């Protein structure tokens, strides 16, 4: 093998240059902390790095959203809790108002207290979150949702519920709209509601009744019990159908009524009892459940309690008003409790997601670091090795290049 002098110099300088390139690359890795400088160094890792980086960013946004969701949910949950205790207080006062020993003025005092509670409830329903958005306004979170005009409380919000994206696939509703919590409170026993007509002259009362056979119910049908002369007979009409109801083939016209034992009517899958002593023309209605806002319930209660009680009929009106109010307050309480439970469940879910997100964050950042970050121990030892190689190349080049015959002639 012949070696040309040019070759000696070329290969020597090339080895030195290569050594410098390698050294520079390692030095760059160490100074930047990154394993690769461009996609070409590791295309798969570069693409994965982009994907992970995006994942980390998205996850960070979810974490922000989770915090915001948790904040709003906590606030709503706490307000709903307050509403629950307020309703319990009102219930206690209402029960107290049923005491037969109370005077009109006592009841009026209670009415005043309940009127105050109503204002407080409106205040709760108009609660805002930390940023000033109304909690129960639906999408319309910048307008005060409830306002009182005269004796009626009007809802100005809508029925949307604001959601926040808290994970790739989960949107958490952070608000409940007021319509569902405060406005749509069912009356009666949830299927039908019984009531004594306000103009009744007797002491007859009707209980809340119950469903005996859901399959036999005629949806949407209303019934009316009308008492005949002396309050000793009654007729049961199906006002929707415009006909007298038949029980066991017997049309319920002028059925005998004993005020000492009362009567239990059971037909079309439902059952209710009438007690007391109605007078002729007294009427009791059984209508499908409707909804009534909790504000109306309290307002009605205030009206009932404010009215002076005169005689047995007045007492019957009062009792039936208080009974109605208690049923409705219970339903309102159930509504608030259900909403509060929902908030609680969502908070629990968001808290779980927070854990998931932070675990996810760590795992993605670890993966990203594995892909992108330089292994310093490896890089440092590589640097030392490359330095040694370069020095050896330089030294040997000097030695070899000095070897020439011309030194001797």
């Amino acid at each position, binding site marked *: 093998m012949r070696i040309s002098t*040019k070759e000696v110099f070329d290969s020597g300088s090339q080895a030195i240059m290569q050594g410098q390139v390698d050294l520079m690359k390692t030095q760059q890795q160490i100074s930047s902390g990154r394993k690769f400088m461009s*996609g*070409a160094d590791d*295309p798969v890792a*570069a693409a994965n790095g982009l994907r992970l980086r995006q994942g980390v960013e998205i996850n960070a946004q979810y974490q922000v959203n989770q915090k915001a969701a948790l904040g709003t949910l906590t606030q709503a949950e706490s307000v709903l809790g307050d509403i629950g205790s307020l309703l319990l207080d009102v219930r206690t006062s209402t029960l107290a108002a049923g005491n037969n020993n109370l005077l009109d003025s006592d009841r009026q005092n209670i009415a005043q207290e309940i009127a105050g509670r109503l204002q407080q409830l409106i205040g709760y329903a108009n609660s805002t979150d930390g940023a000033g958005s109304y909690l129960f*306004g639906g999408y319309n979170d910048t307008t005060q949702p409830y306002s009182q005009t005269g004796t009626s409380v009007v809802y100005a919000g809508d029925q949307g519920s604001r959601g926040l994206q808290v994970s790739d696939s989960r949107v958490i509703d952070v608000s409940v709209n007021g319509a569902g919590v405060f406005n749509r409170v069912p009356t009666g026993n949830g299927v039908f509601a019984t009531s004594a007509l306000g103009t009744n002259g007797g002491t007859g009362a009707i209980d809340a009744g119950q469903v005996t056979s859901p399959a036999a119910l005629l949806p949407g049908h209303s019934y009316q019990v009308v008492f005949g002369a002396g309050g000793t007979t009654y007729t049961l009409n199906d006002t929707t159908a415009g006909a007298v109801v038949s029980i066991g083939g017997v049309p319920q016209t002028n059925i005998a009524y004993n005020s000492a034992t009362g009567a239990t009517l059971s037909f079309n899958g439902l059952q209710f009892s009438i007690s007391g002593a109605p007078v002729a023309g007294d009427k009791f209605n059984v209508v499908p459940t409707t909804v009534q806002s909790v504000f109306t319930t309290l307002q009605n209660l205030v009206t009932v309690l404010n009215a002076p009680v005169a005689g047995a009929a007045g007492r019957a009106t009062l009792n039936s008003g208080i009974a109605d109010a208690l049923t409705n307050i219970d339903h309102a309480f159930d509504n608030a409790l259900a909403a509060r439970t929902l908030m609680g469940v969502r908070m629990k879910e968001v808290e779980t997601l927070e854990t998931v997100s932070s675990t996810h964050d760590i795992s993605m950042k670890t993966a990203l670091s594995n892909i992108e970050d330089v292994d310093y121990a490896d890089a440092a030892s590589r640097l030392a090795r490359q330095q040694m190689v370069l020095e050896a190349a330089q030294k040997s080049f000097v030695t070899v290049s000095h070897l020439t015959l011309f030194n001797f002639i």
Partner: protein
Amino acid sequence: MPGLYGISVGALNNAMTGVYTAGHNISNANTPGYSRQTIEQTTNDPLRTGAGFIGQGATVGAITRLYDGFLTQQVRQANSQAMESSTYLAQMQSIDRLLSDPNAGLSPALTAFFKGVQEVAAKPADIAARQSMLSSAQSLEARFKSINTQFTDLRAAVNTDIQASVTHINALTRQIATMNDQIALLSANAAAGQQPNDLLDKRDTMVLELNKEIRADVVLGGDGSYGLFSSTGQPLVLGNLAYTLSTVPDADNPTDTQVTVALGSSSMRLRAQDLSGGKLGGSLAFRQGGLTDAQNALGRLAIAMTESVNDQHRLGQDLNGALGGVLFTATNSANPNIVYPNSANTGAGVVTASVTSASGNYGLLTASDYRLTYTALNTYSLTRLSDNTVTALTTAGLPATVDGVTISVPTTPAIGDQFMITPTRYGAAQFSVALTDVRKIAAATPISTAAGLSNAGSGTVSAGTVNAPPPTNANLQQPVTITFTSATTFDVTGVGTLNPVGVAYTAGANITYNGWTIQINGTPGVNDTFTVGPNANGLGDNRNARAIGQMQMQGLMGRSAPGATGITYGEAYGQIVSQVGNKSSQLQVNSDSLKALAAAAEKSQNAVSGVNLDEEASNLMRYQQVYQAAGKMVSIAGVLFDTILNIR
């Protein structure tokens, strides 16, 4: 006696030639392309005498260069290929660094945009959050444009490089042609075995130089001249004739430069494959492969984002309560430059191509360019250049939509005319944010649903969605009431619904009127009502912002058919990065190995042809000693002659 003088003087001359040659070698030790020379010394014919054959010394018959044609050819080829891949690599690396940089690439801007969207979703009425989203959209625009500007600059630089290469090639081929002439002339007049070594070396050096610009294969002519041909046999030099290359705007796309060769008075366009190897080959390959592919893919991403985000945004409602407009300037509104008629077209045909958001066409786009050829009466063929898939089109079938590009031909061309269609090339350049007023970001959905406040049943109504694609139904926001007439039927009243009665109710089924869709669940009671109407004052509504935010995760691009699973924006960008990265890394490997190959070939060549100074030193000493000995011979011959003269 005279013979002795002759032998001595011959030896002196031979030694002198040897010293000259060694000196020539030493002085050219570092001349690129130089092949070391040696003297070819042969014994003279002997003199026949009675005493037998008396030797008559030696003569230098020729000075030859130590040269291996095969190795030289290897060096040329390896260098040509190494130069091609290193040129391609150098340009590819600039794209690669640009795209894969975790801070300067598109990826962070893309993520920031969706982060901005999420911020609006978290606080839909917050002007600061909206401003942040708008700013991030604007910085996305800036990033798209700046990357595209780099691409455009690179394209311009490639055109300049091609121009420079062509100039250099022309200079080299002219010189080689001239040298062919000289060498042929000198060789013809030289004695057998004698060659103009240094001229041959010089010519080989030039051919090597030429190979670094473009691959040129050598065919040795009978007169010693070189014929040079490109990889596909296109002659560059024949004898003393050099074929002049020049540059013109590309026939397919006038923004690119194309190389032509002069043939007499006319010129012929050369295809990229005619010009492989060397810097020119590298530049052309980069433009065709890396640059165009990356620019198209980026443009595709820009177009898909524009159209898909706009589609969703237009389904929303802004802070002023108006329906959402476009967030980004629609692609089609300013895209005149995507069809280029071929410069050789004879007809006056006009072809237009456009990408619209209709039927999710943006999702079908590929990163390829297309060539439309009017092949016969009423027949077109459309070739997708990335894989040469041909789609046949007929006049009756136009306008036709292929791969999401709608092609129409307003003016029929002449048969044989061609059109280059580059649907995505300018996508990134035209990406721009149309919206300027932050209040016009459509974060809400224009409808809201409600269950009647006195509903007794357990029926619930979903929040409702606006049917894609935009434009939205004219009656979208008309108040519509759904009233249940029984547990299983409902009536609908409202402008645009045609007030149907007795519609069957299925829990959870889609109910669609006036361009919206809702679902009712549960058991609604008789006379229960549900309303769908305008989302008045829905300032806290973030449904549309959330929907836009969700698009980050949806595979909206690279679909095989509308609605099919595709890839996300981030994945589409990741694909560009990994394609460019893979190409660069492959080129890096190629370039390294080709450089090593070239170095190995040069090493082998140097082993044969390179000068070794120690060897030359020993040669000098050798010839010096011969010279001294021959000088001694002359003096001995003189002494001998004197001896004769002194005999008296």
